[in-house]
């Protein structure tokens, strides 16, 4: 097996520790028109699961907007974006999940909604209207690949279920993305947080595996664009950490060790294998001990007095 060379994982953990404390993301979850009872039910269940993961992650239910069923109209969607545009600042982050059916006629992508559909162009403008410095938009609809290029923007990560607008079959991507948000397997760096990159990697692989297991050609090929996917948390696996002076001190110590680990990694090629592993072990043991202290402090705060 090829071993992954760690790099930004450690820095990401540090960044997240800071970011998650100061800027919990805002979520907008839209489940479009199902058209058939089975799709209506599926999209509704998926929207609920996404909302549950979002609330668990932010700890602030009012930062999670869900539009589904008859509520998911174009007008309501525009209103939700207007509210976000008025609330968020450049230091905030916005996560948008779109599930349902999409269509593409060769020129224009549309998200199917109760009432008039909304075009990809209009959705792109709505995204641009929110001044959040970091954005993630996950479009799990059929034909979603049609918007990949046009939705790219600075600070924005775009995830689509399909490679292009030509992949028009109902997709499986959403269910695998949702599975990623509560999967320890998706959390490859084991920091208890699922980044957009981790969710994408897990979901896209699961989609491919599911088609392969059935022996059929895949009709969707998920895509990701943007360079901050690894730094953007989409879900938390456990409960939110408490914030105390002691925990802040320990977190700072952990960040220091992580910095030393990164420095060691950069020197890896200068060291023989045994020396590298010994130095790595020393730092990892320090990290483990600090981690244990943090976990114990968290547990103590959680325990009833």
């Amino acid at each position, binding site marked *: 097996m090829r*071993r992954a060379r760690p790099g930004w994982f450690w820095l990401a953990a540090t960044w997240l520790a800071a970011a998650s404390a100061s800027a919990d993301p805002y979520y907008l979850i839209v489940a479009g028109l199902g058209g058939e009872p089975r799709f209506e039910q599926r999209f509704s269940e998926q929207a609920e699961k996404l909302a549950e993961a979002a609330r668990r992650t932010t700890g602030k239910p009012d930062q999670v907007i869900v539009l589904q069923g008859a509520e998911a109209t174009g007008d309501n969607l525009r209103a939700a974006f207007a509210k976000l545009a008025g609330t968020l600042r450049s230091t905030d982050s916005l996560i948008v999940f779109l599930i349902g059916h999409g269509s593409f006629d060769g020129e224009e992508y549309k998200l199917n909604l109760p009432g008039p559909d909304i075009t990809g162009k209009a959705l792109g403008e709505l995204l641009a209207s929110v001044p959040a410095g970091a954005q993630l938009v996950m479009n799990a609809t059929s034909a979603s690949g049609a918007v990949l290029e046009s939705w790219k923007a600075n600070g924005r990560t775009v995830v689509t279920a399909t490679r292009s607008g030509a992949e028009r079959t109902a997709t499986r991507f959403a269910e695998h993305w949702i599975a990623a948000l509560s999967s320890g397997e998706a959390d490859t760096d*084991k920091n208890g947080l699922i980044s957009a990159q981790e969710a994408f990697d897990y979901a896209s692989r699961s989609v491919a595996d599911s088609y392969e297991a059935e*022996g059929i050609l895949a009709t969707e090929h998920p895509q990701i664009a943007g360079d901050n996917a690894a730094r953007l948390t989409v879900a938390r696996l456990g409960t939110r950490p408490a914030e105390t002076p002691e925990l802040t001190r320990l977190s700072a110590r952990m960040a220091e060790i992580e910095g030393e680990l990164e420095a060691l990694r950069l020197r890896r090629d200068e060291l023989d294998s045994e020396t590298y592993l010994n130095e790595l072990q020393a730092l*990892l*043991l320090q990290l483990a001990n600090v981690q244990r202290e943090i976990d114990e402090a968290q547990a103590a705060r959680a325990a009833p007095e």
Partner: protein
Amino acid sequence: MRRLALPLLLVAAEAVAGLSIEYGERPEELARCDRAAYRGKRAEANACYLELFQTSEELWMRAEAARALGDYRAANDAFKAAVEQRPDDAALRARWGRLYLDTHQANEAVQLFLESLERDAKHVPAKLGLATVAAGRFEDRARGYVGEVLEADPDNVEALLLLARMHLEEGALDRARERLDKALEVVEAKGLPPLEVYALHASLDLLNGQPESPWIERALAYNPTYGEIYETQAHFYVITRRYREAIELLRKAVELKPDLYSAHAELGVNLLRENKVDEAQRHLAFAYRGDPYSPQIVNTLRLIDSFDNFVVATHEPDEGSPYDPGVILRLHEREAEVLEPYVLALVRDSIARFSERYAFTLKEPVVVELYPDHDDFAVRTSGLPGIGLLGVTFGHLVAMDSPSGRAEGEFHWGTTLWHEMAHVFTLEATAHLVPRWFSEGVSVYEEWTTGPLPGRHLPIAFLEAMRDDRLLPIAELDRGFIRPTYAAQVVVSYMQAGLVCEYIASRWGQEGLRAMLELFAEGAETPAAISGALGIGAEAFDEAFADYLRQELGGVVANLEAWRGAQRDAHVRAEAREWARALEAAERAIALFPDYVDEGSAYLIKAKAYEETGDTARAAQTLAEYRSRGGYDPTALKALAKWLHESGDTEAAIGVLEDLLLVAPLRLDVHAELGDRLLEAGRAEQALHEYRMFAALDPHDKANVHYRLARAHRALGDTEEARKQLLYALEIAPHYRDAQQMLLEIVR
């Protein structure tokens, strides 16, 4: 008309296909050239055809001359122009169809033959064209076309030869001889070329154990370069799986006629079946020069090219086994690491088992190829009649679909390999003289009794055939494989053959099967083998076997419709989530046909009904029963393993997961879970193996792989390796709590 834009074909003018013999009346200008060709006077014949092509004012005659010269493009152009001139001429279209047969475009040829018959419903050459296509595909309808022709003209030589050939392919040698004698009488009386009659007579001698036939000498006296006679004989070796003997004959064919491209192609394909890859490639490449549009040649050359992506692992004979001749595995590089240990273990297990059961020791290493791309595997089987879609055995070489070549759960690769390995023994023990039915019968019987999947797996088509009295007498069972008369007859024949072997083993013991095998090795036909080994005549055997079937399966057959109704009911109720009713219907179906564990099995519905009502203990019991009868649905086995583990029966869970690997060996989660269960059971060495397989499949969560490996190494007492694996895990995921904890424990 579609053919106007013919893209094709065409071979350079000097290319020579096999000699095409015409029995119909031909104008003297053409017949003169034909006579030179039949006598092997190639230069003279070519000059004659060329002159005719250049000077004849008859378009169709120019087309015939061009075809004989191998200039298929010119021939096609001339036929097209001729048909435009005379669109209602049935004979022209039938002749044009023959050109398409020369260039491997059977569907276009069939279209032309049908168009010919639209213009003249009794046109004999068109009927014979259709018969030729059908016979080449081993389709029984060939017989119908030939019958029509012979009814109108009992002396039609081409029809007599086609029928004789079909009889020979089915092993009906006496009937073949009758037709050939008649054909010989006609050609001699009419002064027609006798070469094809001689070739089939020589083939008849070959099938009677006399390959050095006097007919060969007669043919070569008539035409000293008639390599086709050896090629014809070789065909009958190939379809009876005697590839080595076929190769020797094909070598003689190309020696006699070096530009007999069809023989080079056959030689290449059969050398490949003997694992002689380089030599096969040389002959195929040469054949490609003369016949670049043959799908078989092109596909086989592509297959050989794809071998670059395969890993060949040679395993010397296992010193601990008196029977192991060595095993060579050709596996795709993408999956070789994972599949190799399981394939090797099963192959070696089968060799040990079959060597004892059939008192035969293999003399050459067994070669096993697994193809992830079904099309590659299909190329391996091209040109063989009634070959199952999952695997094929060419003596010591087994080729089959890899587990990744089909949807998960679609086939049980372990059983397929076991089946094919049984063929290795029946073929090699008899120098490939074993009849098809017996080889298949033993393989199916061994699947059911000693293979990795227990129980008979009888498809409904077999029970229907039994109910409708469509099973064949034992002496004619081969016909069901080679030229089936109804859609499911091949699979029905497999099952019948398996049940025949089961019956023999139950009444005469394994010794009965061994004795038959010995007689087949001596060249006995089925009736002689039955009476010699079992002391009973073939007809009496058929009656006794019918009694056995009634006793074993009569109840199920009688209740087939009731079972169908219960099955349908169970599925409908389950779909509606009416679990109590689904359970009742499923139990009814199981009571009527308890051995049915294949697609849509009622056991699965029964287990689901219990699960949905919260009774996982009974759900597990149901799945255990399902598994014991040979059920292998991967989702069901995974659930069974989980429930067994939850109930504390780790060893049983391990058994189920090991079974699951014989269906889905490339599933990451199964390797990981099996490793976990083995570790819990204190079987750390085996756990380590499973974790290594897990790692080889490149799982998403790399840190977790290293952590699992660390656990196994630690359990084996290798703390240094465990420490390294933990460091690798934490290097990827520094916050990995379980890995941190173990590292702290190890270094403390």
